[in-house]
């Protein structure tokens, strides 16, 4: 093989091998915990594709990963590690559900639009905080976004458990149901597949266009390449960081609002099951490429929806997905490992460059 075809082979094979390795490691963990890995993974597969309504459910689970993955990837392109997608997702859902249940009598299109915009705004604001802290004070976003996750959980917990957003007619702690007009329409009757998937499919080219064809996208990529070079070229690094964090958070917030409007139609205190963290694996698996986000999100959608059935069927914890995830990231992020496996003269470019630029942590 010549260098070029080897590089193409590695671009396709790298994610595939990573995922296979992920399953091997996860299988070992399952076996060590005393369960049968093959049986468990078969249940996972059943739960993702074979059972009645499994496939539409997988697509439903894919949708938030598309938005969240795009958001995290956008951060990566600017050299920012947004671990706060989970918190931004919560705040976006919170804003979305509030517009959803507090307004009545609006036309459906307008109501949905308002609620989704509210979700974007919520995520944007929540992510703008670490953006400002980084741009103004140099506070590393890894710590601030994680801390804001915990703050977001506590805030949501307060508002929905014993705060002003509790539905007093319900015995379980949750918000009121959203207005029927705010519900995203179901695409295939008899399933939970809702119009959010279409929004996700639209978001992919939009983010690609933003990154590859606009000035702000150029700035984001330049700052990610080298903040020093960007500064020398007259790009305001502070503004670019703030804008990137904001848009990244806006996408996460959109995912949250979309989930409320499309799936649950109300919001319980513990809303997400780690979507925001899985999204980091999605973004890395797609190597921050918007187009590759679709297969990556689909894979994690399948894992997430299949793992619920697996947990129910075999008593193996759905946490096993995190093991797959960690292994996948490890392989993707270790270019030297791949250089060695494929005998490339040059290692594939690392998917992210975070700590090396301004590694003040």
């Amino acid at each position, binding site marked *: 093989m010549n260098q070029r075809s080897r590089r193409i082979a590695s671009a396709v094979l790298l994610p595939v091998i990573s995922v296979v390795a992920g399953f091997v490691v*996860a299988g070992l*963990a*399952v076996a*060590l*915990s*005393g*369960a049968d890995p093959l049986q468990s993974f078969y249940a996972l597969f059943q739960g993702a594709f074979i059972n009645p309504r499994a496939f539409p459910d997988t697509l439903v689970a894919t949708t938030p990963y598309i938005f969240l993955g795009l958001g995290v990837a956008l951060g990566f392109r600017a050299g920012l*590690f947004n*671990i706060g997608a989970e918190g931004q997702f919560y705040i976006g859902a919170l804003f979305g559900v509030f517009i959803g249940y507090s307004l009545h009598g609006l036309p459906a299109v307008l109501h949905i639009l308002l609620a989704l915009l509210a979700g974007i705004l919520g995520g944007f604001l929540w992510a703008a905080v670490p953006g400002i*802290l980084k741009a*103004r*004070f*140099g*506070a*590393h976003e*890894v*710590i*601030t976004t*994680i*801390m*804001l996750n*915990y*703050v977001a959980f*506590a*805030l949501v917990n*307060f508002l929905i*458990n*014993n*705060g002003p957003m509790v539905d007093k007619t319900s015995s379980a702690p949750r918000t009121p149901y959203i207005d029927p007009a705010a519900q995203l329409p179901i695409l295939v009757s008899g399933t939970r597949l809702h119009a959010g998937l279409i929004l996700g499919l639209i978001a992919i080219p939009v983010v690609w266009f933003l990154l590859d064809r606009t000035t702000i996208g150029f700035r984001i990529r330049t700052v990610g390449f080298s903040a020093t070079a960007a500064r020398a070229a007259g790009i305001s690094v502070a503004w670019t960081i703030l804008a990137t964090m904001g848009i990244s958070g806006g996408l996460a917030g959109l995912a949250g609002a979309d989930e409320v409007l499309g799936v649950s139609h109300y919001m319980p205190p513990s809303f997400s099951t780690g979507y925001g*963290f899985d999204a*980091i694996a999605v973004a*890395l698996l797609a190597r921050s490429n918007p187009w590759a986000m679709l297969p990556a999100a689909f894979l994690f959608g399948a894992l997430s929806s299949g793992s619920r059935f697996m*947990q129910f069927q075999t*008593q*193996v*914890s759905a*946490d*096993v*997905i*995190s*093991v797959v*995830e*960690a*292994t996948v*990231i*490890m392989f993707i*992020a*270790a*270019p*030297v*490992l791949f250089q060695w496996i494929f005998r490339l003269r040059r290692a594939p470019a*690392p998917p*992210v*460059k*975070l*700590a*090396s630029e301004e*590694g*003040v*942590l």
Partner: protein
Amino acid sequence: MNEATPLTLAALGGVISERSGVVNIALEGMMLMSAFTGYVVAFQTHNLWLGVLAGVLTGVVISALHAALSISLMVDQIVSGFVINILALGITGVFFKGFLQEASVAGPGVLPTWHIPLLSKIPVVGPILFIHQPITYAMLIAIVLVQFLLFRTIWGLRTRAVGEHPLAADTVGINVYLVRYVAVILSGGLAGLGGTYFSLQQIGQFLPNMTGGRGFIALAAMIFGKWKPLGAFYACLLFAGAEAFAGQIQIWGWHIPVVGWPIPFQFLGMLPYLLTIVVVAGAMGRAVAPAADGKPYRKA
């Protein structure tokens, strides 16, 4: 002092690792894994000390993984740390559901409280410094030890040199990779010891995600303490104090003035996290990180 124990141990780990130039956000995952293995071993052997030992060894093994990924395989140090954090969440989750959930009815108990003879009788100072459980004593010793090792020994000088200017250190014949491996592994041992605090000293049980982000708070304390062992300890006392204070307000049942509503407990729970954000933002301008912190070193 009690709350500060795991924070300080993890922060000391952070100090050593970052002084050698390796960012360690995996402290959280290391603590969680160690809390888990420590508990399992103590449960199986009915020996708490073996549990502590297992926790420390777990920290060592996991940090060796972090070292291999970030030093030899050139994985971005933050990504590598992140990987370890999810791996820890996943593995502890799987095994917790696998066999601990049913088994955790009667735990192995918690480590005993030691009264140091005579010294604990000193008024005021005695109870503060000399009536503790073992891991807290270990933490106090570790502070002194790390301070001494880093600033008074050749090993410490080499470690700091590698963290400031690895190329220069390499030129004078210091093995950069070896120094970094040793630092990261020591850091894992300390974080591992800190992790066993949760399961074996505090409550005598393992709960999923019981470390609750304290590895990151420890990192913030390390920054606030300017990458110095004693400074990190004081910062940890501050964080632990905030946590204890939030708990006290709840016990006292303080109400918001004028309107008279009780302060929701969730807001009190936010306090340490908010404080961390403020500290990281505020300390950043003044604190100077080791110059080569976070930068992988590739030998020419």
